[in-house]
């Protein structure tokens, strides 16, 4: 089914970007922020209406598409700039526009201390990000997705480096961009291989073509395509080995961390796998790699999160860890579960980031949890919403994270990946522990932010940007702490409600639900083509007979007992983690310190993030620098390139030293040479 308003969803934020990027400097904050938020909210409503229309269609033909124009025509290959809304992208656009709107609203207050031009710049970037993200999820072919994919990377770069005068921020922005380039390069290779293999980049066409092919038992072309695209996903979605940029990306303003580096952009890789589910299903080897990488990342990042002291970095490692969960789900073929976790994670992680933003805002830039504590009574709204988010992410029963995480763990176990399940369960223990460590150190216990904070050596200078100058009185003990202002509180409360309720659209049959989200998503992972017949590529004409309804997702009832059992186990794990955190950071405060002293090696390794940055620096950055400096610069450029250029000059001037003797200014010499020349030519013709 066609649509004329689908393009409005991305174009509205783009309009906001244009206004704020061109006129923003001259607009007061209320106008530039109002435009940005207003357009996002309108975009959200358009998205809701479109999804409503979509929901009214029969499940196997749920597609709304809009072709804007034909982009590329080359021989028999053609590519449209086309948008397509289906069950999967519907979930994504609701997350992007919905949570995006909330974060825009939150930002109007959070960024209020910036100057007018900076404020407008911030919102123009934020709007541009939403535009690209929506293009990414709505694109009907790999190239449109790639435009969005690169665009969100650009916006991520711009927003991480928002305080571009700060060295650490601009370094972090560069790191994010460069690390992402590595993944993007693999993504491009995967897309090119897809064109040469299937002759098309359209997701549906490729999926239908892949469906005709056998599942690859060995490592074949589809495995290579999917593996390359997964490498792209490891860059964008911060998985091993390309995850290192995400924790550094916390240099950006906190709403950016919430929107881009927690809720939306970093989930693009998960979405991409879901979008190409048929392709990935035909490459079991790649799926295995995806599952293992995801699980390893989940555990790895979880252990690092346990000892970090920067409130945002703990959340960043938690994000990496949760993304690992999503990839685990994708890897075991539970695409619906992965997208479900993506969706619930967007709520509670955005909530946690915004909550941490409210704490940082209240403490005027303090981000070190060792200098917090006891904030519960000063920041009640922030505390309670943060608590809900923590309970949700820890997997406490009946909150959203519980449903999605359990579905992933159940699918992993049911799929016969017991080892991955054990690691996943261990990670979930870690998740509960580090989240409640964060809660306890930030909100409970004694107040440590009075004398210790200020501009002494404890405060990382990085945070000074939106800190001190506006509030000269901030070092007076605690009394000036203000809880989240209205727009921030609004966003926090809505997200907290979402974190509680979002899981109920995916209640598993074992708990008497219908897994509505799973059923809704099911057709999107099958290659059905009822909505739009294929018109281009080698499969033109292959259409309506493929209109099979998806397999009934009901065959899990016999596993209900197993699922219930696993649920109880993981609930116990969640409570154990919370209890452990309470025991270590409330009851016996000296134990963590003693453990750290007893195992200094382990503690230092974790504190230094397994020295991965150092290892990359030693194995990749420094050799590249060395080769660039000594080889390419001092060797090739100076010796070969400069040598060739200067050599040409030296050659000319050397020959000239001889040749210019001829031009001695004497008319007679010239006459003589002319004469001799004439004689010589004459002689040649006479005697040849």
């Amino acid at each position: 089914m066609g649509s004329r308003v689908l393009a409005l969803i991305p174009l509205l934020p783009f309009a906001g970007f244009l206004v704020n990027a061109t006129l923003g400097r001259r607009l007061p904050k209320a106008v530039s922020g109002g435009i940005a938020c207003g357009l996002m909210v309108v975009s959200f409503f358009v998205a809701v209406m479109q999804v409503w229309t979509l929901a009214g269609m029969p499940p196997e033909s749920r597609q709304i598409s809009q072709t804007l124009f034909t982009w590329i025509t080359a021989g028999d290959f053609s590519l449209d700039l086309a948008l397509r809304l289906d069950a999967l992208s519907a979930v994504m656009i609701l997350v992007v526009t919905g949570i995006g709107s909330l974060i825009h609203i939150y930002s109007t207050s959070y960024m209020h201390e910036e100057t007018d031009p900076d404020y407008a710049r911030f919102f123009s970037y934020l709007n541009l990000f939403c535009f690209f993200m929506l293009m990414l999820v709505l694109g009907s072919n790999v190239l449109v997705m790639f435009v969005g994919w690169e665009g969100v990377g650009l916006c991520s770069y711009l927003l991480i480096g928002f305080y571009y005068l700060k060295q650490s921020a601009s370094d972090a922005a560069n790191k994010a961009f460069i690390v992402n380039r590595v993944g993007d390069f693999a993504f491009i290779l995967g897309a090119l291989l897809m064109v040469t293999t299937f002759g098309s980049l359209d997701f549906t066409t490729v999926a239908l073509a892949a469906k005709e092919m056998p599942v690859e038992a060995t490592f074949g072309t589809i495995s290579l395509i999917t593996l390359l695209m997964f490498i792209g996903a490891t860059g964008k979605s911060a998985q091993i080995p390309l995850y290192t940029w995400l924790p550094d990306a916390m240099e950006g303003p906190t709403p950016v961390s919430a929107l881009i580096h927690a809720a939306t952009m970093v989930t693009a890789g998960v979405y991409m796998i879901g979008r190409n589910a048929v392709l990935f299903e035909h490459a079991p080897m790649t799926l295995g790699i995806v599952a293992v990488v995801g699980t390893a990342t989940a555990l790895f990042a979880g252990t690092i999160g346990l000892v970090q002291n920067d409130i945002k970095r703990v959340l960043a490692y938690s994000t990496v860890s949760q993304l690992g969960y999503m990839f685990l789900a994708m890897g075991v073929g539970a695409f619906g579960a992965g997208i479900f976790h993506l969706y619930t994670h967007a709520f509670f992680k955005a909530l946690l980031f915004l909550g941490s933003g409210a704490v940082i805002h209240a403490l005027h830039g303090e981000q070190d949890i060792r200098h917090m504590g006891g904030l519960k009574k000063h920041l009640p709204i922030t505390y309670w919403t943060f608590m809900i988010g923590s309970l949700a992410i820890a997997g406490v029963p009946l909150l959203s994270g519980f449903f999605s995480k359990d579905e992933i763990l159940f699918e992993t176990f049911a799929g016969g990946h017991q080892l991955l399940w054990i690691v996943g369960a261990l990670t979930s223990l870690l998740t509960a522990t580090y989240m409640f460590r964060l809660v306890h150190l930030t909100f409970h216990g004694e107040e440590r932010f009075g004398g210790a904070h200020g501009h002494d050596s404890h405060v990382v200078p990085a945070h000074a940007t939106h800190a001190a100058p506006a509030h000269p009185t901030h070092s007076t003990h605690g009394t000036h702490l203000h809880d989240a202002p209205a727009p921030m509180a609004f966003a926090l409360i809505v997200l907290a409600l979402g974190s509680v309720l979002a899981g109920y659209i995916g209640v598993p049959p074992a708990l008497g639900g219908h897994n509505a989200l799973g059923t809704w998503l099911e057709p999107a992972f099958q290659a059905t083509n009822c909505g739009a017949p294929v018109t281009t590529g080698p499969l033109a004409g292959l259409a309506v007979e493929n209109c099979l309804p998806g397999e009934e997702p009901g065959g899990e009832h016999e596993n209900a007992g197993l699922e219930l059992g696993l649920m109880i186990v993981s609930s116990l794990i969640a409570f154990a983690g919370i209890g452990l955190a309470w025991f270590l950071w409330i009851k016996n405060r000296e134990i963590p310190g003693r453990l750290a002293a007893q195992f200094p090696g382990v503690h230092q390794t974790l504190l230094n993030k397994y020295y991965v940055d150092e290892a990359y620096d030693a194995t990749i950055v420094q050799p590249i620098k060395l080769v660039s400096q000594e080889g390419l610069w001092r060797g090739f450029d100076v010796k070969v390139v400069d040598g060739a250029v200067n050599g040409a000059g030296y050659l000319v001037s050397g020959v000239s030293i001889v040749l210019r003797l001829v031009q001695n200014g004497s008319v007679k010499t010239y006459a003589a040479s002319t004469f001799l020349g004439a004689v010589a030519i004459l002689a040649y013709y006479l005697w040849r």
Partner: protein
Amino acid sequence: MVSLGHYLVLSGLLFAIGAAGVFMRKNLITLLLSVEIMLNAVNLAFVAFGREFGTVDGQIITFFVMTVAAAEAAVGLALVIGLFRHRESLNPEAFTSLKW
């Protein structure tokens, strides 16, 4: 009977005298005179060929050469006057500053 060969030998002799004058004399005016001798040696050869082959081409081209020679003499003498005002000398070796 004066044959073509005689004319050409005379022409060659005149040309050689002119060329020798150009190379050996050290006075710009003499140089110009020598150039005139060379031109007239060529004129002689043209006329002789024209007579031999019974055409007027040789005489026509001679007129052209004479016209050019007249113009060249006018320009050349003007330059010589200019150069003399500059250096108080007519020796061509005095005018070698136009070089690298």
